[in-house]
């Protein structure tokens, strides 16, 4: 049965950043150069072809874009300037919007003004909430976290954090299940045994924490930068959500604070490096920047910066009022970052990438079992 070609999809993808994919004349250079391109996942050309032809179902049905870590080799070599790297990046953004059933992510990607408005709205709501709660609970004075006059008693913040984390986890989980369904579940002729699912489950945390595949790029710096930002972010999350009391407790628990400082340095250093890279546009993967990338970086940098300011002013300088305001702004950065970015924008890749690696292994094992992989070097006798 013939699949209908939809030439309009390429216009839609332009808003996600795929501006040059139509220039590709399929010479196969990118797939042959890509360090990650191995059977049965030949990236990036197959996905680019599906995009050009508007085969939406096929595009939704593959997690190949998640296997690309944008080392930029393909874009450098492309004879037609079709920017395969940026196209894969745009496909990731598009898939993010496809996995999210609510349609909010699609709205955000299609118009960055909408996302900005949402971010501002959420941060204002957070500010008002904090102020109202602070005045009503906090006996009329602006206090810093625990102790007298705290805007929000730690345990309440703790509960809010856990609730927010739970909610986000739920959203990410549903999107991940949808990703699994689109790429694997509905695929009739692919039989993956339950044991195979269980056997490989360790891959999820492994890739989540180490981004092992990113390290296979020739240039190691991008992987290290990403790892620094990621680990710092996770440490900060752990400190803020799980160990909130000890982190905020008056007497300094050196262990917590050392990790805190390291995490802040990691976050600030990484985001500033990324932002400078995107301004200078020297490496290929920094050449094209989608508005969502900017918002993502500014939010993290803002959160980290305000975090350290309120910590320094409270702990070292004892300027409580400055700390209060810094803490308030800090929350105005953190809540939108978590509430908006994780489920509907760039940050959701923290779930999709490890899942993609996991699914890739499952698919490869299943396919290997079903049909013996064709030896790569066996030449094909074309003319009978």
């Amino acid at each position: 049965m013939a699949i209908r070609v939809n030439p309009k999809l390429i216009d839609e993808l332009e808003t996600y950043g795929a501006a040059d994919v139509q220039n590709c004349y399929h010479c196969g250079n990118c797939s042959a150069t890509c360090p990650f391109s191995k059977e049965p996942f030949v990236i990036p050309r197959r996905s680019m072809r599906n995009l050009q032809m508007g085969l939406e179902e096929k595009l939704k049905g593959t997690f190949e874009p998640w296997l690309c870590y944008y080392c930029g080799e393909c874009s450098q070599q492309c004879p037609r300037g079709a920017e395969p790297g940026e196209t894969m990046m745009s496909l990731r953004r598009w898939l993010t919007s496809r996995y999210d059933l609510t349609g909010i992510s699609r709205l955000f990607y299609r118009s960055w003004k909408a996302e900005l408005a949402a971010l501002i709205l959420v941060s204002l709501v957070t500010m008002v909430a904090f102020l109202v709660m602070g005045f009503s609970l906090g006996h009329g004075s602006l206090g810093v976290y625990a102790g007298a006059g705290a805007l929000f008693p730690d345990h309440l913040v703790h509960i809010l954090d856990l609730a927010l984390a739970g909610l986000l986890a739920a959203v990410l989980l549903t999107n991940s299940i949808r990703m699994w369904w689109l790429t694997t579940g509905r695929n009739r002729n692919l039989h993956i045994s339950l044991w195979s699912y269980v056997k490989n489950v360790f891959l999820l945390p492994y890739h989540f924490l180490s981004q092992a595949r990113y390290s296979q790029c020739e240039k190691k710096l991008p992987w290290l930068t990403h790892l620094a930002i990621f680990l710092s972010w996770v440490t900060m999350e752990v400190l803020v959500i799980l160990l909130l009391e000890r982190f905020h407790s008056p007497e300094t628990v050196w262990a917590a604070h050392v990790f805190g400082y390291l995490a802040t340095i990691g976050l600030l250093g990484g985001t500033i490096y990324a932002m400078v890279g995107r301004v200078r546009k020297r490496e290929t993967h920094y050449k094209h920047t989608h508005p969502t990338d900017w918002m993502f970086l500014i939010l993290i940098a803002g959160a980290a910066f305000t975090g350290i300011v309120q910590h320094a002013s409270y702990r070292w300088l004892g300027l409580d009022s400055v700390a209060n305001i810094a803490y308030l702004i800090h929350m105005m950065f953190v809540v939108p970052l978590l509430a908006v970015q994780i489920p509907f924008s760039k940050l959701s890749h923290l779930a999709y990438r490890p899942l993609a690696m996991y699914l890739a292994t499952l698919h490869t094992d299943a396919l290997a079992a079903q049909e013996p992989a064709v030896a790569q070097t066996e030449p094909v006798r074309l003319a009978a």
Partner: protein
Amino acid sequence: MEELKIGVFICNCGSNIAHHVDVDAVREAVEAKPGVAIARSYKYMCSNPGQDMIARDIREHQLNRVVVAACSPRMHEKTFRNACRNGGLNPYLCEMANIREQCSWVHSDQLAATEKAKALTNAAINRVRYHEPLESLTAEMCPATLVIGGGIAGLTAALELADAAHQVYLVERTATLGGNLARVDLTAPHLDSARDLLTERITRVRANSRITLMLNSELQSLAGYVGNYAAIIRTKNGSGEVQERKVDVGNVVVATGYQEFDAGRITHYGHGKLPNVVTSFEFEQMLRKGRIETRHGKLPQYAAIIHCVGSRNKEFHPYCSRVCCMTALKYAHELKSANPACYVSDIYVDMHAFGKGHEDFYKTTSEVKTLFLMFEKNERPVVRKAGPNDDCEMLIEVNETLSRERIEIPADLIILMVGMEARADSGEVARLVNISQDKEGWFMESHPKLDPVATTTDGIYIAGTCAAPKDIPDTVAQARAAAARILGKIAKGKIEIDGVFAEVNEDRCSGCRMCNELCPYSAIEFNDETRRSHVIPAACKACGACVAACPSGAIKGRHFTVEQLHAQIDGVLA
């Protein structure tokens, strides 16, 4: 008979001959033959040192016959005759043995090929014994030229000759000049105006006093030989009656162009059945009229262009028609200009964007989001009417190569890139001017690289798409190349006629006049006083029919005498 001194020169032709024929063995075999003074072999006999060797040997060994065993005489007989002339030997005392095209290239068994080469060389040696020195004749060269076809090729050739102050008769079958190009709006790849190009040429042709323009006219017959052709042109004037006019010309340029492939012959495209399936020329019409829309006046939201309609295809024409790829890209731009919201799909086999500026044009066509879909050469895209709930008029189903999917392409308007084929009447034209056609009906040039515009018949030239599909710049270049060859001949003033023709031996001729009607060129006249027949050398084409038919063997076929052929027969069987 003077004492025979034959020089035998055997060519290796690089490895083309030496690969299968043991050249030294052939040399040794012929060295001992009676009359052979010297036998040599060399890598490239036709090269400068090779030809100097022949001339030097003729002088040093006083050779009076030369045999060259190398490639086909059709390739280098003229070259080696010149070498003999440079050595002071009459060029007709030279004979070639074809041990390449008809020996080493076609027999891979080394032993058999070498034996055959020996036999062929031996036959040539036998034959050359009976060769006699012949002098070529000269005849006047008429500076006028007949140009057949009023398209861009004919116009350009006519102007080039007329601007050099020579008379040109331009014969065009239809009532207007411009040919196929007149039906085109813009040209690829720079989208220049085809009309301006033709207007410039037509205005200059009509304004040039040296060009006699004959519209609604056809060549009725052509008699004579190079430099002295008599052409009879038949013209149908307004009121339908026909006049005939004889013109004397020295050369003829055939520039009759091509006809488009009839798209109806491919049933699965539905041309003629589905209203919105149009050929490229029908679309040009729409462009010129400014009505780029479907049959019921709707701007096409989806348009599709299908390449290789009738070309590169086992069932119709195996060759590529060379210009349709660029024309298709032009249509993609023109569709987008007429309706920016139109989605254009281009269904091709290989994108032939080979010329100057073509690849860049292909890139800009991609940039305006044309969707390129590739299919295998002998795959058959099928066009059918779309269903009621489809948002388009038609659907094209094809196995797409780059995605390995069987796809359906939406299309409100489908443009078929019809290929070029030889004109239906090209056979008659070929017979009139005595040139040959290849198996596809295109006129055959004498050699694609040595002589791309000349034909096997002296004085008849071909230019443009009548020889093979080509675009406008190549057509213009060929038209001017034909003009250059003619200008070269006219400048020399005289025409050299080969010394090979028939000759009647008066004492043996019995006056039976059998040969008179026999000759297709009526080159034998009967002298009433001497009651003998006589051959007119200039008119004789040396076919030899009369020589074979003369009951008393009175006619000698110079350079193809009975003795020479008998000697060759014995030699080839020795």
